[in-house]
């Protein structure tokens, strides 16, 4: 699996060297960073990795969750098979084989919808969650195998900022104590030194050092997030995972905090993994952007390239969905059909294929584009039950404009139509049962009975269509991973879509 996705390893030597020399900010950053080091007199272990080189390398990372933790959690009941009880674990594949790297000094944006696994990925990288498989290399050392004291010591170099600035601050500690706590834990400086550093950090994150003795409740949301920043910075980390750091803040406050984060990145030579669902924020803060869908990274490219030249249909749909703050922008929205499938049993091949508006036609048949588009629409409509029962003629007219596709596909479609249409033999008894149900006095029960056989017919039509078409597509058979030539910037562009084949 991981060879296939190795395309995400964009940090080839030539690439990054070119990047470092074109990036004019880099030298001055480094200089400033060095002076920081002198000022605080603390060890700068990050100097081993030059700017632009991979600081964190993630390879084939997986994180699966057991679904529940009860006595019978491993037991599942399925009456359609014998024996009806099976013992086996259903595991939620929150992060499933992810490979990419984060370069020193950059901000890598990680964007996706809720449930796509982006926060789990962030936490697994920090080893707050135990990875199921894979390698997390930080400065060449594999975090996934570290444990105990070694891991604890390593934690001073990697920090995290959480979404809810309220919940992540202990209300019983003053902000001074909060900021000093990580230094305590890592045995940095003496009492006076810690206080001086805490006050200095307060000033650097844009707070008044005189507020050292105040409690978190006295601060607004934006200010609390600044306290979180100061706390993360106290142990001089190289790498900070920011999990939706500005989502809970108002727009005007959001801008203040984002600007502060960018300034601190320059001052302290930080590397950010910036997790967010808001594409506008991601576009503003990131250097490179990774898009996640259902536990996989579907596209990773330079920010400008990703936003201006998206190649994955999911990225395109995501970008089209954002409401643009411009009333004269009347771009059509590509509305995504359906919902995200369950991560317990994700689709084979490309995970987005069940919703993809550009699912590739199975090669086994001869298709015109129109025939395939019609069949695809019909297949999904049957699967999602988005239309009302109607006659076969109506179905043909509604979905195929009256003419079914030629040859074998046409025959399969015809069979499916027979199953779901109201005027065919196979469906006749279904309709009858349904009508009886409606006329019966105790409506609910009888309708449910009629619905039952209707459901069976629909299910077999769905299975027939999916097995004949969707499962035959290359999208279902192979997991995509392609490296393409970018139009913007010199970075490589990874996209997990077979349209690039």
């Amino acid at each position, binding site marked *: 699996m991981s060879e296939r996705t190795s395309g995400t390893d964009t940090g080839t030597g030539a690439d990054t060297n070119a990047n470092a020399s074109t990036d004019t900010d880099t030298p001055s950053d480094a200089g400033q960073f060095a002076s920081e080091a002198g000022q605080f007199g603390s060890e700068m272990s990050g100097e081993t990795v030059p700017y632009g080189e991979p600081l964190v390398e993630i390879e084939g990372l997986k994180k699966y969750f057991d679904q529940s933790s009860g006595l019978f959690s491993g037991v599942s009941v399925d009456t359609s098979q014998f024996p009806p009880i099976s013992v086996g674990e259903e595991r939620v594949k929150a992060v499933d084989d992810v490979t990419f790297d984060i370069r020193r000094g950059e901000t890598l944006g990680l964007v996706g*919808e*809720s449930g796509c696994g982006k926060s789990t990925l962030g936490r697994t990288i920090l080893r707050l969650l135990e990875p199921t498989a894979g390698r997390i290399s930080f400065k060449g050392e594999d975090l996934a195998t570290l444990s105990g004291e070694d891991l604890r010591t390593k934690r001073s170099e990697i920090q995290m900022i959480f979404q809810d600035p309220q919940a992540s601050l202990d209300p019983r500690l003053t902000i001074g104590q909060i900021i000093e706590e990580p230094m305590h834990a890592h045995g940095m400086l003496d009492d006076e030194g810690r206080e001086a550093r805490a006050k200095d950090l307060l*000033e650097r*994150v*844009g*707070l*008044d050092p*005189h*507020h050292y003795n105040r409690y978190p409740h*006295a*601060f*607004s949301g*934006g*200010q609390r997030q*600044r306290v979180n920043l100061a706390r993360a910075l106290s142990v001089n980390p190289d790498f900070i995972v920011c999990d939706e750091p500005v989502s809970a803040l*108002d*727009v*005007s*406050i*959001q*801008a*203040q905090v*984002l*600007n*502060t984060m960018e*300034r601190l990145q320059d001052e302290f030579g930080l590397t950010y993994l910036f997790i967010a*669902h*808001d*594409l*506008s*924020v991601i*576009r*503003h*803060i990131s250097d490179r952007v990774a898009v996640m869908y259902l536990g996989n990274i579907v596209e990773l490219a330079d*920010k*400008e390239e990703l*936003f201006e030249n998206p190649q994955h249909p999911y990225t395109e*749909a*995501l*970008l089209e*969905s*954002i*409401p*643009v*703050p*411009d*009333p*004269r*922008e009347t771009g059509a*929205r590509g*509305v*995504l059909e359906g*919902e995200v499938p369950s991560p317990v049993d994700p689709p084979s091949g490309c995970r987005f294929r069940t919703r993809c508006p550009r699912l590739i036609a199975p090669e086994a048949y001869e298709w015109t584009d129109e025939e395939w588009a019609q069949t695809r629409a019909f297949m999904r409509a049957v699967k*999602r*039950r*988005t239309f*009302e029962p109607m006659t076969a003629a109506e179905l043909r007219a509604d979905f195929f404009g009256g003419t079914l596709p030629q040859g074998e596909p046409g025959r399969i479609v015809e069979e499916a139509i027979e199953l779901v249409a109201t005027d065919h033999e196979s469906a006749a008894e279904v309709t009858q049962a349904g009508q009886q149900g409606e006329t019966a006095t105790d*409506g609910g029960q009888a309708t449910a009975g009629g*619905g039952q056989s209707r*459901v069976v017919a629909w299910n077999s039509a769905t299975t027939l269509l999916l097995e004949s078409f969707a499962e035959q597509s290359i999208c279902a058979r192979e997991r995509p991973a392609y490296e393409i030539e970018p139009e913007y910037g010199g970075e490589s562009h990874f996209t997990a879509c077979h349209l690039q084949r």
Partner: protein
Amino acid sequence: MSAEPLLRVEDLKTQFFTDAGTVRAVDGISFEVYEGEIVGLVGESGAGKSVASMSLLRLIESPGEIVGGEITYKGETIFGLEEGPDGELREREDMLTNEEVRTRIRGNEIAVIFQDPMESLNPVFTVGSQLREFIELNRDLSNGAARQEAIDMLREVGIPDPEERYEEYPHQFSGGMRQRVLIAMALACEPSLIIADEPTTALDVTVEGQIIDLVDELQQKYDTSFIWVTHDMGVVAEICDRVNVMYLGEIVEQAPVDELFYDTKHPYTDALLDSMPRPDRTVDELDPITGVMPEAISPPSGCRFHPRCPDARKACKRIHPENREVARAEGYPHRAACIKHDVFGSDYEESVPIENGAGADQQTPASATDGGRGESERTDGGEHDE
């Protein structure tokens, strides 16, 4: 522009009486909603937009109270005060009783869609039965007819296989599907006005897009008017016809959507637009609004935005501008509450600019921002320390 507005709000004031003092959550706002239009109510958290929208249905509970103003809906007075013989304000006689508001207005005439669809649905009843009950009560239909109507409504809002899903419980629905159910519920009695309070804020961006498209479609079909409460200027641009921008309990700008974005008349709206990262282009440097919104318990003197305003002058500390018409567009007024406009006839031009830390470094916003208490002192020029 049709002659009579569907809803007219005049000088509405809602206050909360707390131990710490009186919170003027909504402080004299006026706006109209005409038939078939979507009116935005936009602002940051604490601006008073939710309190304002709930006041329209008299859904304010103690310690909150509507203390002034007039709300007229289709010629009926939802709220109105008059001066009694003893000089005290009392409720006017033509004002609808609580009973009338409950039975005739809420649900039937004005419906609400809330932000969190999980909180608005009862987890122990099936989605269908909740929808059916609502229709049964409000439209006087028999159980069976209401059930059919409920299924039709579910289908109408794009829920696949509505007959089967009728029997399911709210937790079996995704967030987007739940919001669709609430839209179905709101539309079920074919109200003339729907108040949508941040209906897409809790949703993912692709689902948000679906819901916005659905509302657009249904709005054209049923010709329902909407009051769309949101903090997201993107959603405003996408869906609203006219917009009211709220700041600290007041409407500071009111304009058709195109004018609001392209001919902005209030510095707050301007600043808000500048501080947003854009999805459609890369912005190198964000221009945040300095400071935070003060608390409504002790608003600044004069113009409430003056401590954060880049255009503020001495006169702004003194004069409290009302939302006056400064231009007309598409037959609608473009109102703004800022004395820099000539119609106010103030001495803004001659007045001395105030230094608001605009252009100063990043520390200014935060060091001066622990709530409203310090806010007014700070603007007198001092660094606000304890």
